[in-house]
């Protein structure tokens, strides 16, 4: 059983896309990271002031962890087996059994105790994905899509990260490919993915999501300094940028990655208009980066009162307008 599975590890920006892309690659389906991201409708925006992590409201540029996964398997007709375990020892045993059968097995882990991860990024974040591909000298061989190469973890280390506690506690959650369809309709899957993203960004009737969410956030940011004081306001706005530029966003809250997807989609669907839109999206991504620059300055001068909050809020309104127009065009392009 010490024989490693012949698994091609490819680095990617985002863990969920990367794991799916690498796993499918193992079974002979070559889809790039942006393709997985686009078909799984990974682009989103939400700002939920009542949902707090570390006392700071959550802004997110992606749907909940696991959703990209669910959507792509549905749209391509791939079935996954997934399991959770109450007993950690059983969870490790099940993993060993899988490896003995030569099945690369994906799993959810917490980042905080992940020994090979860079320290500044080790927060209590529990929805990181990786694939275990074999065992060597009692250690587990790990394909972590964020890393350049393969990593290793001991039994105890792996057990610890599989049983991290807190929000989204993984509880030893693991998954593997059960069945791959002989053929699937890539074009249809892409169109479905795009339509879903447009719907999410434009029509959810709650002001915290999509384009409306960006306007909502703009109002909040404007009021931060007067409502929270300089120090806390800086923390709150800083959090937005941390979400936007977090490892895995591929820059600018996934906007650039989605652009890469549209460009690939333009070729598959033979719709050159998608290529034009992909370039337009790059421009919107640049605006998001400008927002990050302003915020970086606010955070740097965090202990003094700052007038850039208005500036940042105005920029968010501009972005919201641009994204609204963009997704309307995108919707028209595929329907």
């Amino acid at each position, binding site marked *: 059983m010490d024989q490693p599975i012949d698994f091609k590890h490819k680095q990617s920006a985002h863990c969920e896309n990367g794991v799916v892309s690498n796993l499918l690659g193992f079974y002979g389906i070559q889809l790039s990271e942006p393709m997985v991201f686009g078909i799984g409708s990974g682009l989103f925006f939400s700002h939920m002031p009542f949902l707090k992590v570390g006392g700071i409201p959550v802004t997110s540029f992606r749907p909940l962890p696991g959703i990209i996964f669910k959507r792509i398997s549905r749209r391509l007709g791939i079935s996954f087996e997934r399991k959770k375990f109450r007993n950690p020892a059983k969870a490790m045993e099940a993993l060993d059994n899988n490896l003995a059968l030569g099945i690369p097995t994906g799993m959810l882990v917490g980042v905080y105790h992940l020994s090979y991860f860079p320290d500044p990024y080790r927060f209590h974040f529990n929805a990181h994905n990786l694939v275990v591909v074999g065992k060597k000298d009692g250690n587990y061989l790990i394909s972590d899509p964020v890393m350049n190469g393969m990593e290793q973890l001991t039994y105890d280390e792996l057990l610890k990260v599989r049983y991290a506690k807190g929000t989204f506690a993984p509880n030893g959650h693991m998954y593997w490919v059960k069945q791959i369809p002989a053929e699937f309709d890539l074009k249809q899957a892409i169109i479905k993915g795009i339509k879903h993203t447009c719907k999410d960004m434009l029509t959810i009737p709650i002001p915290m999501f999509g384009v409306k969410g960006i306007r909502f956030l703009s109002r909040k940011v404007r009021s931060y300094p007067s409502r929270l004081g300089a120090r806390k306001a800086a923390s709150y706005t800083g959090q937005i940028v941390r979400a936007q530029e977090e490892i895995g966003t*591929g*820059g600018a809250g996934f906007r650039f990655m989605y652009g890469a997807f549209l460009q690939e989609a333009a070729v598959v669907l033979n719709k050159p208009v998608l290529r034009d839109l992909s370039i337009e999206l790059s421009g919107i991504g640049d605006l998001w980066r400008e927002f990050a620059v302003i915020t*970086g300055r606010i955070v740097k001068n965090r202990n003094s009162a700052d007038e850039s909050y208005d500036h940042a809020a105005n920029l968010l309104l501009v972005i919201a307008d641009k994204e609204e127009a963009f997704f309307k065009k995108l919707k028209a392009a595929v329907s």
Partner: protein
Amino acid sequence: MKTTEVPQDDANMLQGKFREPVYSLDENGNYTTVPSVGWEPKNEVMKEAWDQVHTKTELARQQVLSGLKSPLAYYIEKEIMDIGLLAKYTGMWRWTVKRHLNPKTFSRLSRPTLEKYAKVFNLSVEELIDINRLKSEK
């Protein structure tokens, strides 16, 4: 963003462990990835978040040293936890953990309970209850 504009502002956030692929446009308008070591605004907000953690940890350290709180208060902040998370890791109730933040209650805890806490923080029981250790910590 153009490939030539992908920032390379190193603040040792990734500790040389990997470089992050950033999607950008090359000179022909095709998307491609460029590995980046970091970007100034992001480094700045990361530093701020850690600064926050360190401030809280230092405050807790002072409180423990002056006898206002039990050592648990310090280690909770140091491991970026809160009472709820520590409760989950130890399998105790939140309010039980909260009570144990009181130095008096803490001093009467049984060995098995202390062991539970020590295990979460990767310490021995002796290290956990030794307040003098905190004097030299930053």
